[in-house]
């Protein structure tokens, strides 16, 4: 009789433990993901192609807390506990200023810009290539990021800039690009060979007064090591939209879209270690860039338009 009672007693305790365990396990499915800001953030949506993300989708807050908050902070202000060790600092989402955009300087990026940044990571920084996420998770996270700044409710994203078709890579294009690099004074920060050693390079600070270095085109081997993507179109976008929050301005007002492609071709040959079509063309031309000769308009004999000096239009 005593054993029976003891068995009953222990099985009751065991059942209790198991029941509690089940309840807790169920609770794990939807953890409380505080902190709970005083002003609740209205839910936001993101639209990337056919995909729609929701900031209040159940994994979004959890994913952010698990994967992002350590650097970007629970309040999205870039002050996660890891942030003190990091350079460059994690993005402060509360400012809604982003480096990698397809939209003009001073405007919000598109949802696709953010979606791509999460998936691509940011090379030369601690932002990894987030290939653990499904596309839906990424879309939900884009929507979640948009809850951190009221700008997303007040403003529409900028329109993506129109990028004309890339012209062929020729030595003339590269030569024009070099003339533009000189005329636009890119070398003041980037240096004459793009090594990030220009006269103004040492004093550059970003918009939060952290020291920052200009991009060094000559660094790296076969990877292209651009923060915002490695295609020619990505390079085009960098100087036509500006890298907001940094010293890199937008040249959209002062460079014609077709001339911008020439500049891209020249920038590629500054990447001396990287195998590229542009470097092939340069090598085929003997490895030297000829001086740029501005094309004169076709004119009747005896009347030559006076186009003026200097490269570029």
């Amino acid at each position, binding site marked *: 009789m005593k054993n029976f009672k003891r068995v009953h007693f222990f099985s009751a305790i065991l059942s209790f433990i198991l029941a509690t365990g089940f309840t807790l396990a169920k609770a794990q499915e939807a953890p409380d993901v505080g902190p709970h800001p005083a002003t609740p953030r209205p839910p936001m949506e993101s639209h990337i192609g056919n995909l729609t993300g929701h900031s209040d989708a159940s994994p979004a807050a959890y994913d952010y807390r698990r994967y992002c908050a350590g650097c970007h902070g629970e309040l999205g202000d870039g002050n996660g506990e890891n942030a003190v060790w990091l350079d460059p600092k994690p993005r402060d989402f509360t400012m809604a200023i982003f480096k990698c955009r397809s939209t003009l300087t001073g405007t919000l990026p598109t949802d696709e810009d953010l979606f791509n940044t999460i998936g691509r990571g940011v090379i030369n920084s601690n932002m990894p290539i987030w290939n653990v996420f499904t596309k839906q998770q990424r879309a939900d996270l884009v929507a979640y990021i948009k809850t951190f700044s009221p700008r997303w409710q007040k403003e529409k994203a900028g329109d993506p800039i129109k990028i004309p078709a890339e012209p062929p890579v020729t030595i003339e294009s590269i030569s024009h690009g070099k003339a533009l690099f000189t005329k636009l004074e890119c070398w003041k920060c980037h240096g004459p060979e793009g090594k990030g050693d220009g006269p*103004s390079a040492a004093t550059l600070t970003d918009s939060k007064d952290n020291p920052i270095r200009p991009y060094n085109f000559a660094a790296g081997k076969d990877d292209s090591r651009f923060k915002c993507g490695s295609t020619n179109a990505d390079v085009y976008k960098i100087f036509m939209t500006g890298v907001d929050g940094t010293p890199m*301005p937008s040249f959209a007002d002062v460079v014609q879209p077709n001339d911008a492609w020439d500049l891209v071709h020249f920038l590629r040959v500054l990447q001396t270690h990287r195998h590229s079509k542009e470097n092939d063309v340069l090598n085929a031309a003997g490895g030297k860039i000829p001086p740029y000769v501005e094309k004169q308009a076709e004119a009747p004999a005896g009347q030559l338009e006076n186009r003026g000096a200097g490269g570029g239009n």
Partner: protein
Amino acid sequence: MRMSKTCIAILVAALCPAYMFGGTISGKVTYTGTPMKMKPIDMSKEPTCAKQHATPVMTEGVVTGPNNTLANVVVYVSAGADDANAPAQAVTFTQKGCQYGPHVLAMHAGQELDVLNEDQTSHNIHPLAKVNREWNKSQPPGTPPIKDHWDQPEFIEVKCNIHPWMHGWFAVLKTNHYAVTGDNGTFTLPNLPPGKYTITAWHESGQKQTQDVTITGNETKTLDFSLALKPY
């Protein structure tokens, strides 16, 4: 029809709104304490600018005049006046000799801002707005003025990343009653209709002072401000 002088006077008085004969607030801004020492700017990295200055120019974080007067203070009506519309006329901010002119530019929210580059070198205009949108544009020499405007009131620091000594400020206000003091520290705010006003004096060191004043008619009220400056 010839109108008598009395008739004309009555007509003028009836048609002219009262505030055309409004009151004026004027005064002087001085400082106490020891201000930061200004340092000479080394422009040797930009010879086209360096040669425009016979002697090196000083930084402009704190510009003072004789008898402890303080320049570059924005004195404006911060309460009491109806929010007016932005004037149609643009304000101009120029880059010359690798310096901003004026160092502090006041304007109404929504008013057009034209930025000129009068130098032979490229500059980039980088207003570090936090309430408004921050943007950053390159402006090579000989290119047209950059036109923009600010929607929200804010004091915006402006810098050029290429020339790190260049600092300026945009004082974006929601009133047209403002003045920026010169070296003699004086300011005048005319055309104020009768009412109770709050006047704020703002300086880029972060110091500011607010005072209340009442205008009853066409009088001129004197209002002096004193800001405490620190050496760092």
